[in-house]
């Protein structure tokens, strides 16, 4: 197991945001995390990234406890894409992506051609060719999101934690982002809102009220009953006659 959480919990002022999460993510899998607003998805990702210190339980990366790992080594293994990270600094797209190399550099181990190559690759993967010298403030929401993805890719992590990465993206870039993440030789955990996108994951975890209430292959976990219970909507499954793909159709639960 590349990433394991046991009895993971986090509370603020006695309010339990996440509690009792047991999770083991396999190497190379694409793991979807779904759940309504405020169900604790983002907090769980921040705990798994080691940015928040858990109040209960622990996280282990490749068998080692994350809390004992220096930040730099942790960042060489795990990249985390925040939901909204903005800056007032006049930085360019290339500057922002180059930040991804930070965990691999020290004052004694400066920037090299290899780093240039990795940054160029990350820019290309995120479809940012021609954007390199654009200033951050001139980018649209979706473009900013792609820059954040490129920065996470430039970090060359083994584990990619993405918090609603398809937010703000147009349809084409939503699909290409998910395809890209699925094709990468890394383990990824993605918080998603679109249940149809979740169907494409290897496994899905469902969060509700700070707990992980279901875990397994998407076809099993995302049942009509569970969707009604967790999200309060009525789902029906439609099959595309062309290729047999399953699609959710969602309605208000009356």
């Amino acid at each position, binding site marked *: 197991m590349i990433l394991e959480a046991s009895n993971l919990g986090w509370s603020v002022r006695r309010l339990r945001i996440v509690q009792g999460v047991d999770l083991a993510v396999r190497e190379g899998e694409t793991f979807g995390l779904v759940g309504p607003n405020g169900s604790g998805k983002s907090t769980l990702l921040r705990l798994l990234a080691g940015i928040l210190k858990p109040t209960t339980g622990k996280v282990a990366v490749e068998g080692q406890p994350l809390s004992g790992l220096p930040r*730099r080594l942790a960042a060489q293994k795990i990249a985390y894409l925040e939901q909204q*990270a903005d800056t007032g*600094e006049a930085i360019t797209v290339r*500057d*922002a992506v180059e*930040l991804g190399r*930070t965990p691999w550099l020290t004052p004694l181990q400066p920037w090299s051609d290899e780093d240039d190559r990795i940054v160029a690759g990350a820019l290309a993967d995120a479809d940012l060719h021609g954007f390199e010298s654009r200033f951050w403030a001139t980018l649209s929401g979706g473009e900013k999101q792609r820059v954040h993805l490129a920065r996470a890719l430039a970090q060359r992590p083994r584990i990619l934690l993405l918090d609603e990465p398809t937010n703000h993206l147009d349809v084409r870039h939503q699909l290409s982002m998910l395809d890209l993440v699925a094709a990468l030789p890394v383990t990824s955990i993605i918080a998603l809102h679109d249940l149809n996108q979740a169907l494409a994951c290897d496994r899905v975890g469902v969060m509700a009220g700070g707990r992980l209430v279901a875990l397994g292959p998407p076809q099993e976990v995302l049942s009509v009953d569970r969707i009604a219970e967790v999200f309060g909507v009525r789902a029906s499954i439609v099959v595309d006659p062309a290729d047999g793909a399953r699609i959710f159709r969602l309605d208000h639960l009356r």
Partner: protein
Amino acid sequence: MAATVFAGTCIGETPIPLSIVVQTLANKVLGAAYPLDPIDMGIIWNYRLPRALVAASCGAGLALSGLVLQSLLRNALADPYLLGISAGASTGAVTVTIAGIGGGAVSMSLGAFAGAVTAFLLVALLARAAGGGVSTRGTGQIILAGIAGSQLFNALTSFIITKSANAEQARGIMFWLLGNLSGVRWPDVTLAVPIALTGLIACVWHARALDAFAFGADSAASLGIPVRRVQVVLIGLTALVTAVMVSIVGSIGFVGLVIPHAARFVVGVRHGRLVPATALTGAAFLIAADVLSRTMIPGQVLPIGVITALVGAPAFALILLRGRRRP
């Protein structure tokens, strides 16, 4: 850099030809033996050169402090003056002076450091209690808390002066508080230069960490920066640098706020280049301000804080207006 220090040494109220300045330096540094007027030599070696060196260290140190605070707190308005660090340092230094603990620059610096750290801790605690905090997204509170802290410590300083100092002491302290390089001698140089260099080296060492704060503390953490440690080390150093500079030359506003912005317009936002540029600009700016303060009104020395504000404010306005035209 060397040229600026040299220029600061050459220009002064008593006109001294350039050749004599060079010969003095040659005599002192290289052991040459040019026959010179001992008064000229004294002015150059004991008065102007240390003054220029301290001005350079002070300018570089204050500008770097401003840069560090702006980057770590992600607030363009952050600087040691506005966050109450200078005010706290003044209170500390004044307390030590009046209470007469120890003597000389070192004990005053220690007092100033204690004051600076106390002030910053108070401001940070207040900001956190108000929901802002040092590391979180809401950074407006830290500025508000800083203003409150500045007022509190300035009031404390005034209170201590009025309560305890005699008239002569009070006048001296008030003049010193506005910033004054007149009393600077070699012992001050041996304190200011190493502290400024320490600050510079620490900032160069942490340049990538400072870059990583561009998207906030969480993002810095996910890029492998030990956020808490970097904040404590760099902000502690900022307090130390500010405290030492305040104890030597009094509290000089504006440098910490304006110089980093000016440097950003020239070399961009990456700290690898921004840190040296800020240090150089700060040093050159304060030497120039000191030269102006000595020569603007013949026979009288203006407090340097007056010059930095008088020259700095319009310069900053110009930079802002020119920056708007850029994409």
